[in-house]
């Protein structure tokens, strides 16, 4: 599947496996910054690891501290490879924006319509290209 209907929130290209859910996630309290493991017992991805994956969630939720968590994960190298979501609140985007300024490392974020996100399954191969998003396409 090739997606043309998307918005770039944080620029960058990437290819990685998807870790996908339709449940919003709070990075603070919901994720271990060192290991990248999801620890929110109310979340269906609990105990899965997001490091190096394209994290596909509809929204973030909960704490305003999610941004600090993502910033530190970018510093440590435990962040997802990218985030694909329906709406990227500032809590998601801030970490990569300052990560780029302070450490020269970022994490691309793109948004797609909810009906597109709901098609993605964990293990799908997601590619952020300059002009499209590929899902399970070489």
């Amino acid at each position, binding site marked *: 599947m090739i997606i043309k209907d998307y918005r770039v*929130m944080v620029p960058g290209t990437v290819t990685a496996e998807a870790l996908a859910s339709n449940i*919003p996630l*709070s990075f*603070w*309290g*919901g994720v271990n*910054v060192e290991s990248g493991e999801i*620890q*929110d*017992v*109310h979340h269906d991805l*609990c105990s899965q690891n997001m490091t190096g994956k394209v994290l596909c969630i*509809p*929204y*973030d*939720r*909960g*704490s*305003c*501290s*999610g*941004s*600090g*968590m993502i*910033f*530190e994960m*970018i*510093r440590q190298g435990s962040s997802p490879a990218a985030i694909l979501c329906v*709406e990227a*609140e*500032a*809590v998601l*985007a*801030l*970490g990569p*924006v*300052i*990560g780029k*300024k*302070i*450490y020269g490392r970022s994490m691309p974020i793109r948004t797609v319509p909810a009906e597109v996100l709901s098609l993605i399954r964990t293990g799908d191969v997601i590619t952020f290209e300059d002009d499209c998003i590929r899902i399970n396409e070489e």
Partner: protein
Amino acid sequence: MELTAYEHDMLNGKYGEGYQLAMEVLIQMGELYGAKRFIPVRNAHIDAAAYTTIWDAGTEFLEFLADHDVKVPQPTTMNPLSRDILSWERLGASEEFAMKSKRMEDAYLRMGVIPTWTCAPYQCGNLPQFGEIVSWSESNAVNFVNSVIGARAERLPDLMDVCCAVCGRVPEYGHYITENRRGDILFRLEGFDDTWFTDNVDYSVLGYYIGEIVVNRNPVIEGLPERTGMDQLKAFSAASASGGAVCLFHAIGLTPEAPSLEAAFQGWDRYETQVVTPSDLIEMKRKLDTANQSDLSDGHVDMVLIGCPHASFTEMQEIAGLISGKHVKAGTEFWITTSRTQYELAVRAGIAEVLEEAGVTMACDTCVMEMEEGTRWKHQTFVTNSGKVAQYAPGINHVFIKMASTEGCVQAAVTGRFPEEVYV
């Protein structure tokens, strides 16, 4: 974005690299979210104060600002730390960890903040005016100040809150804009008799229930009793911002932008209505009570926790009345987290003494879910009245949750067993 001459000067480095970095971040964020200009603020509250939320990366960012002589231009209160400044050692933090927090605190103090270290700044003297644009962060506090005070706040992420406070500016986006403050969906409470909504726990469960449904839309609630007080609205604010990402709610007849349905929806009438009944909340509480779903939990209570958000004088007064003459059971802990200022008032009133004599652990300046020691506890079960604890503590502190009223929490602390209360 359109910049004033002063904003241009900050961006061009006239006031140094610290303001320049903060301004660069704000412009990038503002443009990302469609802001056309900045709005000056006279009041700020910074969330990014716990070491376990901003870590070394955040600390280095703060030190960069402080080293470049950045000062906050307006009164700026601060969220809880990862330690109790006076009692961290007694409470079980390591020196190495405490010093990591101190390093971050020092950077903030150099920037001229007010060291309130509380997540309920609105109960410690930071009270903006109705309609005032503020630079606030901390999900419960943003929700409270937007909804209950009617000031204008947006869920500023950690560290963006610092950039805004430093520049004295917020990008004009989100809930700063009148149209975005319109209610999106109506929740009508039906079938609740007078026994409901007498305790914080009901507001916590309702908040979580609504938050989970609306995620980041603005809920309007009809049917909450007139006697609903500040501490209950605090519990609702925290829970709806944890179960979802609620940033603004309107409670008809209670909150200032909602004298009527028409006002809450800004004259719009095509909204969806959902009826909420007691069985919805009983079901929600059952879901949050993870202790009930676990074979590992046998009804023994390791820890009772009140003070998320930070307990007010009034809440401590109520607990002191309930626990006076009794004692926390051996093998069970009862913690109250609060701000230093509310604690000092409790000391003056003799309430702190009653609580401490009964075996209650009082922790100031901090949060059980942001402390180092909290992650090392071997506790299995928390009893709490907080929806925010119910959301986060299972992941952070590795515990099962049992939610209870304030009275139920005290009973659990004294007996060491789950409270015998029929919900609710």
